[in-house]
């Protein structure tokens, strides 16, 4: 019973405040057409992503469907990346999309060419954010 209380509390807490996480949870599984995604975070996103129910954090980037964050080692560079800053969105070759703040506003973008490269599908609802 105690576990349930903790889980329920964490779900309620999660959806009360962590709007960025909510965005990742809504958008990223849609790209992969999966309910649960394995993700490898960098140090800046790890803490938030560990609260997620639909994104499972893995400790080895090779086991991950997707990398989420700003900075990754070269050995992970073959994996698709969802960037969390404008700079990393521009920096990495394998970026499929990004969430970042620019001009004082949160923004989301997807890179069509890399979405195709990794055989992912951009749902209609997200097409207008694609570049």
């Amino acid at each position, binding site marked *: 019973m105690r576990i349930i209380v903790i*889980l329920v509390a964490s779900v309620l807490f999660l959806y009360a405040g962590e709007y960025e996480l909510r*965005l990742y949870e*809504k958008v990223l599984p849609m790209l992969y057409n999966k309910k649960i995604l394995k993700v490898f975070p960098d140090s800046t996103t790890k803490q938030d992503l560990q609260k997620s129910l639909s994104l499972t954090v893995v400790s080895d980037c090779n086991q991950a469907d997707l990398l989420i964050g700003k900075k990754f080692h070269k050995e992970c560079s073959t994996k698709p990346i969802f960037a969390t800053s404008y700079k990393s969105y521009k920096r990495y070759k394998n970026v499929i999309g990004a969430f970042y*703040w620019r*001009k004082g506003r949160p923004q989301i973008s997807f890179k069509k060419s890399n979405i195709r490269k990794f055989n992912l599908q951009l749902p209609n609802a997200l097409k207008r954010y694609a570049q």
Partner: protein
Amino acid sequence: MKRFGLSLLTFLSLLHAEDSLDIDTLLTDIEKKSDLSEKTKLENSGISLIYTRDDIDRMQAKYLKDILISSTTYGYKENRYSAPDPLFQGDFTPFVSCNIRVFIDNQEILGGVFASGVGNLGDIDISFVDHIEIYTQTPTYEYSTEPTFTLIKLYTKSALKDEGSKVELSYASRGAARVTTYTANELDNDWNYFAYVTYDNLKREKYDSFGTALSRDKKRTHIIATLQNENHRILFENINFTTDAFAGSSIDATPLTSRLEVNNLHLGYDATVNHFSYGVDFDQHILKYNFLDDPDAYIYSKTSKTTTNIISADLNYKVNFLSNEFMVGAKYRIKMYTITNDTLNEEEQPPRDNDHQDVVALFLQNVYSLRENLVLTAGLQYVNVRNPGAKYNDGSDIFDYRLAFTYVTKQWTFKTVASHLETYLEPFLIDSGYVADKDLKNYINDFIYEDIVYIVPNNKFEIVGGYLLSKDYILPDKDYGGKLNNYNETIYTSSLIFRWTHQYRRYDKFFMDLAYQNIDNLPDISSYTTYKAVFRTLNTFNKLNFFNELIAEYDSKSKEKSYTYNIALKYQYNDSLSFALKGENIFDKAPEYGYIRFEVTEDGIQDLGTLYIPSYDRRAVVSMEYLF
């Protein structure tokens, strides 16, 4: 049981899946509700009032005074020299708000010999600010090198949220105009920078005093630059202004010329590495004053150039063990000043023997968690202040302490704060003509406050009740020709504040603040009571933002009721361009503050009556913002 749990989780997930939020709505939620103050606010640190980025933007608060006017603790006042001075009481003391301290990020911005930066920053443009935190009743010793009763923390924007550039143009009543621009970017090596410049031509309302038009017009350039990464920050700030200094030194408030030129420069570095936080700051404040009155006036001319160089350094160590968060710190500050071209009625003034003040502060602070939701905070600070060469008030040793008790449940927070705070004279008063020729005692504030917060969905209620004893308060003393002296009686202040924040639709917010304060045992008035009520609404309809604010005030001394009504409208044309219109104090009924006026004749001192002037003008502002 596990199956039940999983079913419940699935049900909750479905609830959220069915929540038909589109991506744009989610992005708007992130914009409006992501609040950096959640990361920066100082827990267990006095009573706080936080203005989020969204609040500031929608209130169209372009200057810090737009925030301070609704503060129920002080409000916003300008002194005889037109400088922001929230504790100003109408007399001839050049500045009294010394223990209201202003920080940009984690670095204190000082105001030269006046110490507090609120005189320069109280009306500063705040387009560089992400959010503002105001702490009252002796906040944590972590930031207070010197006695601090109120801490105003302005957090700068950064490339974290504001990568890109912005230009903002505004035009206001009486031909006032302002240009602001900033740029922020991330560099390749985890560092990022933010650079900001504002030029302001502030045209203010002029007020008549016996045929003389008193002016507070100001031209100001304000530059801020930060270079930072996760653990290190370099901050540069420069405020340069010339201002008509209102009544200035004229005791009957009829100056022919009253003009101040100020250049305030700050360069500082602060860092947090493992358990240590440390910083080194340099502040330079150059103040030139030029005053001229009728040849038969008691003070008919005055000039001075005061240059103050201040170096501050601090080192703090924080460690967690068992249920304790223990912090120890040491701070050092030296304020070196020189006064040149110091003339009064065309006579060169003798130089003061004291030319600097040394302050050494050591503190211990422990936050002990008795239970997960029950926290006891205790702090002790020793301050040694020295004014070498001073004839009077050459230094003192101070022990300040504070004790706080916080109990938190899911919906309730109870915080009790008790504190002892001693305040000494800042350099501008040492051996000056404003202070009685004697050694003064440090004045003491002993207080206890209770803060109760109750949160339910979409509502936050807060009650703050306080009782303050002020001993040896420093006030003008008739027995010493109006010079500052310790007041022998104890002043008792009781206050009660009720706050309610109500989120009544997704982006619509109502805020109410009702405050009562009673001060007993002041020198010329046995009891002084003030009432203040603030009502504020923030509404969003598609691309339009509306802001309404009514501040109603009454005090038992003037028995005058005042109403400051502010209204604003912002139209977001697209992601890059917005237009805004704001009316400030539109009924011209803002509170008026008294400026005493005297004339010195052969028969003695003649009271010419107090001049009542508002510190917040009536004006309309149109502005445009373009981001790229």
